[in-house]
């Protein structure tokens, strides 16, 4: 349905300008301030910024003055950035692999069960992410259920899963599942099974139908799901903080630390800007891909 076509009862454009103005104010200005802060210096005392401009914060993401006085390429923050990609990427793939079957399976149930199933998928999403991350923590604790199961399986006492990067990825996966399932389900529900029927009639096997008919048709949902999991995953804070044992650091954790104990607001701002640029880049990438597919369909 073409929304752009004017219909009666659709009010005037001011209805949109006010909300947009609000967003520009409450989102745009903080971003502007952060960007400005990223070019400022640290004050000698306390927290905040000193109004002296310098690009040093950006330099410090990649270059550090070592203790022996030499300047060198600093892998620390690059590592953190890489980790963010890695963990978010792995959790995206994992949720994808799990979500596609679930979404399609729900879409192929009888109508009266479908709504209930969607509800069951949505319910965890409605609970606080804190609680869900805490649940994973209790689950993975080696003194708890996991420990007893692994002892039983003969994997030795104190099987250590919590406080590792793996735990962070597990946490990310667990909390992101609903975000992947729901968009794919939305696409899957609209899937016209006559296409599959036609394919079977033409002699295609199950796997063929799956990969060559179903998946392409639900790809908008897949892309939406990827966007909803990978991009927020990059900026995730809680999973690494609560499950990583302080040893897993993603970009958000370093930013928070710099606005906290490390007391380096300009540097935290620089990292924030960097993170924003990254997420923006991937968003554009995915939206371009989606648009290309939509155009190809026409």
């Amino acid at each position: 349905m073409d929304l752009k076509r004017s219909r009666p009862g659709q009010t005037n454009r001011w209805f949109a300008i006010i909300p947009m103005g609000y967003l520009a104010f409450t989102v745009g200005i903080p971003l502007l301030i952060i960007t400005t802060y990223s070019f400022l210096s640290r004050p000698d005392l306390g927290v905040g910024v000193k109004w002296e401009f310098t690009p040093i914060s950006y330099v410090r993401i990649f270059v550090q003055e070592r203790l022996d006085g030499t300047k060198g390429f600093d892998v620390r923050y690059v590592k953190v950035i890489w980790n963010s990609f890695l963990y978010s990427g792995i959790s995206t793939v994992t949720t994808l692999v799990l979500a596609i079957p679930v979404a399609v399976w729900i879409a192929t149930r009888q109508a009266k069960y479908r709504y209930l199933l969607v509800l069951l998928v949505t319910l965890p999403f409605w609970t606080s992410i804190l609680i869900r991350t805490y649940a994973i923590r209790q689950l993975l604790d080696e003194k708890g259920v996991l420990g007893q199961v692994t002892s039983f399986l003969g994997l030795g006492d104190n099987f250590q899963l919590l406080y590792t990067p793996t735990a962070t990825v597990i946490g990310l996966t667990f909390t992101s599942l609903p975000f992947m399932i729901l968009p794919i389900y939305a696409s899957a529900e609209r899937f016209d099974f006559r296409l599959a029927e036609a394919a079977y009639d033409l002699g295609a096997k199950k796997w063929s139908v799956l990969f060559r008919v179903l998946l392409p048709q639900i790809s908008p949902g897949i892309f939406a799901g990827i966007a909803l999991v990978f991009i927020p995953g990059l900026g995730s804070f809680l999973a690494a903080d609560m499950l990583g044992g302080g040893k897993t650091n993603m970009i958000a954790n370093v930013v928070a630390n710099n606005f906290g104990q490390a007391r380096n607001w300009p540097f935290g701002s620089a990292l924030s800007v960097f993170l924003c640029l990254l997420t923006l880049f991937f968003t554009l990438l995915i939206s371009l891909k989606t648009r290309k597919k939509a155009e190809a369909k026409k």
Partner: protein
Amino acid sequence: MKTRKLVNLRSFPLFSTVSYLTFFILYAPIALVIAYSFNVNRTAQIWTGFSTKWYLDVLTNDDIVKAVKNSLIVALPSTILATTLALAATLGLQRMGRKGNTISIILLGAPLIIPEIVLAVGSLCFFLFIGLPIGFIGLIVAHTAFCIPFAMLPIRARLVSLEASSFEAAADLGANEWNIFKRVTLPLLAPGVLAGALLAFAISFDDFITSFFVAGPGSTTLPVYIFGMIRSNVTPAINALSTMLLIGTGGILFASYSLNQDRKK
């Protein structure tokens, strides 16, 4: 018609197994949290007996009650504001030119794309900059902002699914713009608006990072309080509180589910 081939057509290898597995994955940790909430031992994972004392602990804890109140004080105005602005935006967007549309899409997408930590920290700096004392007002301002895009999703979806004919019919019958809006557009959009409001409420109530950075005196919200509990005093009280929240949320969702079922009849 299709029923002859229904089962065959709609099933794929392993899909049901994976689905059962995934539902198990989704709920096992939560089930564990609920189970441990009845552990009499202070250390949740060492089970020493059944007890409901932690529930009593939570209910009589003034700070928790206050945190819940604070969360509501922030979430309710944010929801109303965000949903109203979202509704206005959905409608008005159709009247915007190409340029306006592009800018709007960017602005609407911004809170979703920009990592929340950046917005949280940015909001803090922003309020500091303009001298707004951090507290409820700041929280509501910030929450409303990131709730708008979420509230818009169901409203927009609903609008898209409506037939143009309803509006055109009303116009043909001689109704003016305002009347069409009041008596056709709004009622038709109502389910979407309700869904948007619920979504916005959930997002706001559940929010952690922004609330953590922007909370001021006496405005500690529930998630921030729970975070503090997890940080320092880990007892099954956290489990009890989580269970209560789960039941509350589940209850609301099931209520809306059964309402929906009723309406369908």
